[in-house]
């Protein structure tokens, strides 16, 4: 293996700079296939298909030859967590460059063997060609063992998009054939030899202490595990474990602390909890601000929101001597490995975490916590894999939640209707609560173990860089005098962490609702008002596009129906999205149609982008009109689909997506860009349909009535 210094030119490709050995990214496998390794996991966003397209394109092999290796701390490149809509930028750019370098390396070997200059050779589906004719050589004949065990050199040119034939096309998803036929593919389907089944008996309150485990009358062969207030059982079958868990739960005696705020007064909770005040952005222009002729202030809120993944979390663990192997659907297997090691005082080298697919993941759900549960229960039966399945109630009641938030906005318009000053204050618990963040393992059961301490409040990331609760809190509009402040709560009675788009969902809902309110003050059309405050042509383009294809100018103006618009550039620096929603507010709030125009730069898989944006729009509509975590003073009470309703087929709007071409622009993720703009479009449409502005999410019939009564 050569030991060249990583090239400084790789700084622009952070995943490759961090994992510079080419063989950590790809291998030419027997049977004429290419295996690619990524640190990014598939959870339904289609990223593996897009990464395979990138590799196939750069190597000049058919897409069908490329397989993606499962992610594991045992061999995959460490690319951190699969989050933030960054997989194509990070993993895609690394794979593209690694494949380009592997291609050049093997072409150089082919040149040596044929005596022809490398630039006279080309590749056709992995075969080395000279003047278009086979040389008898191929990647597989040239790639002797160890040939890719070398560090990437300085960046080599990659194929320009105008020469793409595999990337840039809507390749069908590689994982769907298994999923439509019901073949085992999910972690939940994995059956290991000798596997036993565990269940954890969670406390009856978020803050509770186990006084006595009692003496449950358990059948023979059950193993019970108690450590402090952590209680679990292991049985030969999952049904047996579930039955035993019920008996154990019945026998246990707990001391409960009522530690939760008042569910009916989230604003009171957010404004009265201790908080740290962090400046996010300040550009002062007192002269411009002094021109304000009209001032407005408004407050917008969102409740706690649940991930409510279709599959309750699951994990498998097996102890072999001092080492433990874990199978998890975590979004960050490396961070999970380190958190498990830190939490249980192990060396990270003792812990291996393999990823297996779970159901759709929209942020930090219960996956990592279930992994610790499995590790704790498997310790009681060394050498045997133990599978822990969470119940629906476990998932809804114990997985981290997206925090409740309050955004207070004030702005001033000058005499011509231009915004001259803006202040935005955001109150929230932190969003950055994944394992390892803030130097803490942050795994649920650690607080329940003997000697455990409550999990410290979630961090919220740096104030700049569009992180945490203040993601998209800085409006993308031209405003001379502006101040944005984050108020991060220092108490966390309800555990919070990342949920799709972080604070952008509420901030964009607030900013874009407020923009409509300001446009009304200024007597301007909402579209024209936005365009008048934008200088970025890509921003204007998505707004104009969505206005055009939704028929904004000729939108219906009848009682009970309304149309609204919402716009944001995700994180202020990534993909652009503008949405128009049509809402009916007769006996209920119904979103009928949503139109979206997006610009996510260069696109690897157009249908993949459309699918992500459609899904984001539907989920945002569900959050905006239906969802709200409910709790009493001791625990979460919205623990089933009855008490936590999400949009159903008969309620889901029609969604139409246009992808605006952006040749030459860098790739930007599509998974989170719709969340804010769609909620805002719905809010603005409802204001028109109901004739009253509703500023507290979710936008239900009850909230409309409350707003009418208050107005």
């Amino acid at each position, binding site marked *: 293996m050569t030991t060249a210094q990583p090239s400084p030119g790789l700084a622009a490709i952070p995943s490759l700079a961090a994992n510079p050995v080419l063989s950590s990214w790809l291998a030419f496998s027997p049977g004429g296939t290419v295996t690619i390794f990524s640190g990014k996991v598939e*959870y*339904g*966003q289609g990223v593996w298909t897009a990464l395979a397209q990138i590799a196939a394109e750069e190597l000049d092999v058919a897409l069908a030859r490329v397989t993606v290796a499962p992610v594991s701390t045992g061999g995959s490149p460490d690319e951190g967590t699969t989050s933030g809509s960054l997989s194509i930028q990070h993993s895609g750019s690394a794979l593209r460059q690694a494949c380009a370098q592997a291609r050049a390396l093997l072409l150089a070997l082919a040149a040596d063997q044929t005596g022809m200059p490398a630039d006279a050779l080309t590749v056709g589906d992995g075969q080395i060609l000279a003047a278009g004719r086979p040389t008898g050589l191929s990647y597989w004949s040239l790639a002797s063992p160890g040939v890719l065990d070398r560090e990437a050199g300085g960046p080599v040119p990659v194929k320009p998009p105008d020469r793409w034939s595999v990337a840039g096309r*809507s390749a*069908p*998803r590689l*994982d*769907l*054939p*298994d*999923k*439509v*036929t*019901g*073949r*085992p*593919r*999910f972690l*939940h389907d994995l*059956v290991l030899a000798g596997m036993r089944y565990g269940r954890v008996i969670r406390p009856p309150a978020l803050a509770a202490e186990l006084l006595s485990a009692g003496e449950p009358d358990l*059948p023979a062969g059950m193993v019970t595990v108690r450590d402090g207030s952590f209680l679990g059982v292991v049985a030969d*079958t*999952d*049904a*047996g474990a579930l*039955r035993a868990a019920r008996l154990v739960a019945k026998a246990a005696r707990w001391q409960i602390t009522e530690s939760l705020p008042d569910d009916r007064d989230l604003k009171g909770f957010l404004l009265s909890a201790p908080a740290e005040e962090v400046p996010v952005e300040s550009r002062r222009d007192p002269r411009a601000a002094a021109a304000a002729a009209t001032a407005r202030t408004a407050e917008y809120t969102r409740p706690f929101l649940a991930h*409510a*993944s*279709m*599959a*309750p979390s699951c994990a498998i663990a097996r102890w072999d001597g001092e080492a433990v192997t874990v199978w998890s659907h975590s979004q960050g297997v490396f961070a999970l490995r380190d958190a498990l090691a830190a939490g249980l005082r192990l060396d990270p080298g003792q812990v291996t975490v393999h990823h297996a*697919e*779970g*159901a*759709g993941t*929209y942020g930090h759900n219960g996956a990592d916590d279930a992994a610790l549960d499995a590790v704790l229960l498997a310790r009681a039966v060394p050498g045997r894999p133990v599978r822990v*399945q969470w*119940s*629906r109630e476990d998932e809804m009641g114990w997985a981290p939640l997206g925090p409740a938030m309050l955004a207070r906005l004030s702005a001033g318009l000058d005499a011509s209707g231009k915004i001259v000053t803006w202040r935005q204050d955001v109150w929230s618990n932190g969003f950055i609560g994944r394992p390892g963040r803030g130097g803490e393992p942050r795994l649920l059961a650690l607080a329940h173990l003997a000697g455990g301490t409550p999990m410290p409040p979630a961090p919220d990331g740096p104030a700049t860089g569009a992180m945490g609760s203040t993601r998209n809190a800085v409006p993308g509009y031209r405003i001379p005098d502006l101040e944005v402040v984050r108020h991060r709560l220092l108490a966390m009675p309800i555990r919070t962490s990342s949920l799709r788009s972080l604070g952008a969902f509420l901030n964009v809902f607030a900013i874009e609702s407020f923009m409509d309110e300001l446009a009304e003050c200024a007597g301007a059309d909402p579209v024209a008002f936005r365009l008048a405050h934008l200088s970025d042509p890509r921003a204007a383009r998505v707004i104009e596009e969505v206005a055009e294809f939704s028929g904004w100018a000729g939108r219906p103006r009848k009682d009970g129906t309304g149309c609204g618009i919402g716009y944001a550039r995700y994180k202020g620096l990534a993909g652009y999205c503008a949405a128009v929603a049509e809402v009916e507010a007769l006996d209920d709030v119904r979103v009928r149609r949503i139109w979206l125009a997006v610009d996510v730069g260069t696109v690897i898989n157009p*249908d993949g982008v459309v*699918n*992500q944006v*459609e*899904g*984001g*729009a*539907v*989920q945002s509509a*569900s959050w905006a009109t239906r969802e709200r975590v409910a709790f009493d003073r001791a625990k979460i009470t919205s623990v*089933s*689909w*009855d008490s936590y309703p*999400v*949009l*159903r*087929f*008969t309620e*889901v709007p*029609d*969604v139409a997506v246009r992808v605006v071409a952006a040749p030459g622009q860098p790739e930007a993720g599509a998974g989170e860009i719709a969340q804010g703009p769609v909620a805002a479009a719905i809010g603005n449409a409802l204001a028109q349909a109901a004739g009253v502005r509703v500023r507290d999410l979710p936008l239900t019939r009850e909230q409309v009535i409350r707003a009418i009564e208050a107005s």
Partner: protein
Amino acid sequence: MEQQELHLTVNGADHALACDPAAPLLDVLRAGLGLAGPRFGCGLGLCGACMVIIDGKARPSCDYPAWAAEGTQVTTVEGLGHDGALHAVQQAFLDEQAAQCGYCTSGMIVTAAALLAANPAPTEQEVCEALDGNLCRCGAHRRIVAAVLRAAHQRTGQAAR
């Protein structure tokens, strides 16, 4: 939790297996017969991830006692295709790329197959109503509806020929 011998007909094949007859059919299908298609989502019959067809009717298997399935024809997503070919609904799901994570997919396909068997040419509204007990959290709903309508058109088109 007493074990009894239970006789089930699943995907056309007869099985005799020792199990707790009060156990949910879902457990018997997954743990007893090794079928991964019916999936656990809630255990209360509220999400549709575990849908199977029992004597022609789609219903959740997670709250259906295994004993009650004796003497019935149970079909899971694994049993929908014929002679190695996909069922029209499965093919249409691929054609429309009608999924994101795919965890709810087998339940959706089972519900849709039962709908089309009973009503070969449903309206869009009828498709939505039939699928209302199947939850999707990724937001693939509109693609799923398009896939079911596509499958219906294909099958009725073929029948007309």
